[in-house]
């Protein structure tokens, strides 16, 4: 990348005074900015990415400009904490060079009077979030505010573009590019698989495939990653890594600060508890995850920055960009799930480019050894598995359309051209755009009209505007794409035990420990024990929308191991590598923890599938008949597959009872002998696993699926059909869930082609149901199914079957629950 390296003298001096030399990529960005060219900077952690992003702005602003010139640079990050962090980091160069630059942040926490002032007298550089950008763009003064904008810097772009927040930001960027001609966009990103996707993302698309310039910072020192093998034989299943705790603890004692990453909140709770159990030196070890009380989390973050912690056990809440002090070791407990995710986590250690990041991978079972090995190989090759680019959500578009109507009106043709200029919406058809427009205006219903309640109307000048100012308020309350699952507070209580034998007395509320998802709370029955906030708690009752719990006796085992699997499914990329390892015995000697023996036994007793084959085993066990399949397509796709397989087996009168899904495979069991059914040709695997299951079977299931209803609820909230819930509002999440379920039922029956159902199906394809991946798998295994009828469970099958009882079996409740409850009532009545 050639660029005029001449930094102004003051900047050169400032670098020199600190003993720094401006890096190539930093200079390259200055050169590109001068030329008015948008750019994507791809750089590893510690490469001075943020300074590189701001350097051109500071150089430009240092030259001075007339007072009241307005906003010069807009910086957008996914986290408000990151915006605050960057503001602090900008202080050094600005104060050091005495630059005439005013920097401010604007987040959800910024007081209203300050926000109003920012609209009137904007700073030179404003640091904010995608939601705040949407709000500012919907403001009537948006043209005045952004008309003179020169640069926009998008931080952690790789993380933003994978979600609906990225869609919202893409629409905002398209708008900015209209309001401020000549605007230069700069994306800052970690290493990604396809940088060209992000390069297109940054500049308006007109069908010619325009891309921003690419600047790549050279990779830092190679990371020093080890797989921890604390036991000669790892367990065949489970995610607790209990045996490895002493070694993790020793590693913590040997380093300044350690981040211990886990995949789920429950794992975080478990690891935290186990580390404290053996914390003989009383090291400051803290816990950080999304369910903990916010105040508690802030305390941990502050202690981290202050360097007073030796270790933090955390989930993906600490995955992103903030510099948490002096971390010199990253431990990843459990499977890494994706190579890129692993690299970013490892990058949290040692934010200095020239020293290697140090990391320890801790597999918890034998499948996870395979996965860790695959991830390690990928890291060594610098292979990436960041997700495919998104197709922009229609629900997000609906929100944006309302925002643009608030901003002072839009012409439909112009807005369509603007929106399709954003890469994620480049494939949007005019038909879908018009359907979204009609949805925002009157609900877009074919058979009945809400014309008189229209939210936006087309004026005589041809522009669409909101019908009344109240809708502006509604838009502002509803902006954003993050839909929180309804959460319930967990409150510690005490039971006043009555005399022996009598029911326990009332529970009095004590302190709030944090929050759990409502759908988790729904699975609890009184007396169930679970780990939360570092303790084993007993569920007592639900009171006033709070989960009341009590402390258990020390040494009590938690009964409910929810979230045990993992939130992120195994990436397809790692799955391919794991399948390849299984198929290649020459690779086994590299695998410790008993994997080689395990796979060898599998080969003798059953068979190992080739890398593109699907192995299906059937066998009897304990009076039941099992079918175990190993697609390696991640837990979400397996769950969907399990739902559809049990439906099909049920229709074939093979009496399935339930199934369990892991990241690697799934086990279905029932009362009919599946081996016999296959031998007699009453059942064929090619039929059972046929792609046609994604037709009627899927439709039938989706009509009643709770997962689909949750997906619809998210879309309905983002699209503005249903209002979001706020703290203190009397409407509980439960009532919203109910009403959105009812709306889903009615809409699906009367207008299945509605645009919001289209948006919901699009989400289901990649979201909770992972249909896209399931479809790809069914097509991959066509004609490649290997069946093995066995007398007993195989070594591979054990690993899947051991999850029965650990994982929630079969995700959705059926009316069997009602039938059972009734039988119980009748049984007692007749006794």
């Amino acid at each position, binding site marked *: 990348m050639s660029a005029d390296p001449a930094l102004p003298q003051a900047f050169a001096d400032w670098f020199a005074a600190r003993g720094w030399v401006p890096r190539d990529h930093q200079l390259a960005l200055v050169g590109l900015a001068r030329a008015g060219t948008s750019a994507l900077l791809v750089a590893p952690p510690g490469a001075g990415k943020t300074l590189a992003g701001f350097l051109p702005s500071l150089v430009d602003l240092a030259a001075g400009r007339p007072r009241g010139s307005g906003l010069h640079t807009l910086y957008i990050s996914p986290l408000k904490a990151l915006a605050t962090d960057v503001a602090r980091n900008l202080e050094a160069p600005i104060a050091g060079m005495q630059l005439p630059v005013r920097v401010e942040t604007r987040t959800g926490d910024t007081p209203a009077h300050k926000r109003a002032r920012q609209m009137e007298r904007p700073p030179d550089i404003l640091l904010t979030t995608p939601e705040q950008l949407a709000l500012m763009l919907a403001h009537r003064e948006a043209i005045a505010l952004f008309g003179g904008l020169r640069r926009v810097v998008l931080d952690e772009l790789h993380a933003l573009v994978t979600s609906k927040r990225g869609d919202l930001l893409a629409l905002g960027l398209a708008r900015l590019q209209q309001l401020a001609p000549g605007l230069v966009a700069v994306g800052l990103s970690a290493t990604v698989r396809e940088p060209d996707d992000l390069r297109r993302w940054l500049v308006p698309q007109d069908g010619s495939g325009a891309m921003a310039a690419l600047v790549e910072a050279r990779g830092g020192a190679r990371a020093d990653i080890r797989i921890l093998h604390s036991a000669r034989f790892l367990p065949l299943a489970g995610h607790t890594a209990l045996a490895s705790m002493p070694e993790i603890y020793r590693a913590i004692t040997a380093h300044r600060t350690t981040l211990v990453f886990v995949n789920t909140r429950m794992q975080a709770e478990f690891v935290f508890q186990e580390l404290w159990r053996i914390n003989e030196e009383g090291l400051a070890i803290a816990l950080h995850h999304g369910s903990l009380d916010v105040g508690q989390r802030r305390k941990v973050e502050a202690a981290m920055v202050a360097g007073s912690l030796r270790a933090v056990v955390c989930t993906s809440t600490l995955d992103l960009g903030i510099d948490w002090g002096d971390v010199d070791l990253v431990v990843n407990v459990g499977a890494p799930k994706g190579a890129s995710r692993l690299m970013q986590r490892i990058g949290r250690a040692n934010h200095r480019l020239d020293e290697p990041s140090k990391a320890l991978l801790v597999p918890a079972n034998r499948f996870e050894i395979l996965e860790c090995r695959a991830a390690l190989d990928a890291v060594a090759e610098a292979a990436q598995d960041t997700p495919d680019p998104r197709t922009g959500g229609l629900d997000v578009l609906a929100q944006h359309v309302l925002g643009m109507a608030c901003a002072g009106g839009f012409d439909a043709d112009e807005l369509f051209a603007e929106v399709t200029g954003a890469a994620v919406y480049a494939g949007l058809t005019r038909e879908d755009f018009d359907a979204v427009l009609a*949805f925002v205006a*009157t*609900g877009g*219903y074919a*058979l*009945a*009209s*809400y014309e008189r*309640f229209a*939210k936006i109307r087309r004026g005589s000048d041809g522009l669409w505007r909101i019908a009344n100012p*109240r*809708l502006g308020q*509604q838009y502002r309350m509803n902006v954003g794409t993050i839909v929180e699952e309804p959460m319930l507070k967990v409150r510690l209580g005490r039971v006043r035990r009555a005399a022996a034998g009598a*029911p326990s007395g009332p529970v009095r509320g004590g302190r709030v420990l944090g929050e759990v998802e409502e759908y988790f709370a*729904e*699975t609890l*029955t009184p007396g169930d024990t679970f780990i939360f906030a570092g303790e084993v708690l007993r569920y007592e*009752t*639900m009171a006033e*929308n709070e989960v009341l719990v009590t402390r258990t006796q020390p040494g009590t085992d938690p009964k409910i191991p929810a979230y045990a699997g993992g939130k992120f499914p195994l990436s397809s990329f790692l799955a391919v590598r794991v399948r390849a390892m299984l198929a290649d015995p020459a690779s086994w000697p590299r695998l410790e923890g008993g994997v080689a023996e395990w796979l060898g036994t599998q080969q003798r007793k059953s068979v190992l599938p080739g890398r593109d084959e699907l192995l299906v085993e059937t066998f009897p066990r304990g009076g039941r008949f099992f079918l175990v399949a190993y697609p390696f397509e991640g837990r979400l796709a397996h769950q969907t597959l399990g739902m559809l397989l049990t439906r099909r087996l049920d229709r074939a009168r093979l009496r399935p009872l339930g199934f369990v899904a892991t990241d690697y495979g799934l086990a279905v069991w029932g009362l009919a002998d599946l081996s016999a059914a296959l031998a007699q040709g009453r059942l064929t695997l090619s039929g059972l696993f046929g792609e046609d299951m994604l037709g009627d079977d899927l439709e039938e299931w989706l009509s009643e699926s709770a997962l689909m209803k949750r997906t619809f609820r998210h879309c309905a909230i983002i699209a503005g*059909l*249903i*209002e979001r819930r706020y703290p203190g509002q009397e409407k*509980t999440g*439960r*009532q919203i869930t*109910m*009403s959105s379920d*009812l*709306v889903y*039922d*009615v*809409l699906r*029956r*009367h*207008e299945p082609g*509605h645009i919001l159902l289209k948006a919901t199906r699009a989400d289901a394809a990649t979201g909770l149901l992972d249909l896209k991946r399931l479809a790809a798998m069914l097509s991959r295994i066509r004609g490649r199914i290997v069946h093995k009828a066995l007398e007993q469970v195989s070594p591979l099958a054990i690993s899947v079957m051991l999850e029965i009882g650990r994982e*929630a*079996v079969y995700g*959705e*409740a*059926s*009316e*069997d*629950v*009602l*039938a*059972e*409850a*009734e039988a*119980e*009532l*009748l049984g*007692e*009545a007749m006794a």
Partner: protein
Amino acid sequence: MRQDALANDGGGGQVGVARAAMAAGLRVGALDCVADRSGALFVERHRLLAVADLHLEKGSSFAARGALLPPYDSRQTLMALAATIARFDPAMVVVLGDTLHDRGAFDRLGGDERALIAGLQAGRDWLWLTGNHDPALPLALGGSVHAELTFDGVALRHIPTSGGGAELAGHLHPAARVFGRGRTLRRRCFITDGHRCVLPAFGAYAGGLNVLDRAFAPLFPGRGFTAHVLGTDRVYAVDPARLASD
């Protein structure tokens, strides 16, 4: 726990209810009734079909306030009612109040829906009870309007009363969360102790209130009730010991 529940409630009533449930029916005061999976209650002796809380035009009521919900709820509700009427062919239909979601609901009701109502009324007596959402009902709805009715000593009214005589009522929109196999299922239900019965809401957009909510406590002291939970093909009788709160 179940034993306790039975003992606490004085068992006998429970057993009676359970036996009645086997015959897919339940008894309220002197009336033998069939609880239907649609949420309607049929009294064979009078060929009387009772439904509660249709909340017609709830969707457009939300729309007027800026939430443009699918405008098919009235159609859906009336089609479900028509299907139920076709199965039982009642001589008399009693709607236990809150037929219209708000005062403007009748004016917003579409032509097809009005015709549907008129068609259902043909050849049978149609009695509307007033509810808190619809203290007055327009004449154009057809049928007759009442505050309360009595059949064989059982009062039919919108809001259930605590104490007093046997009654059939609506208003509370009972729903039950049934647990088992580590999961729970939430459905609309009838709630009854053999003396008083509250019907589930029939309207497509009518939400449900958990029967363990305190609103039900004065009506069924000590959780002395059975929930008749609406399934896809039939109604299931469930003891409170198998119910969870929301």
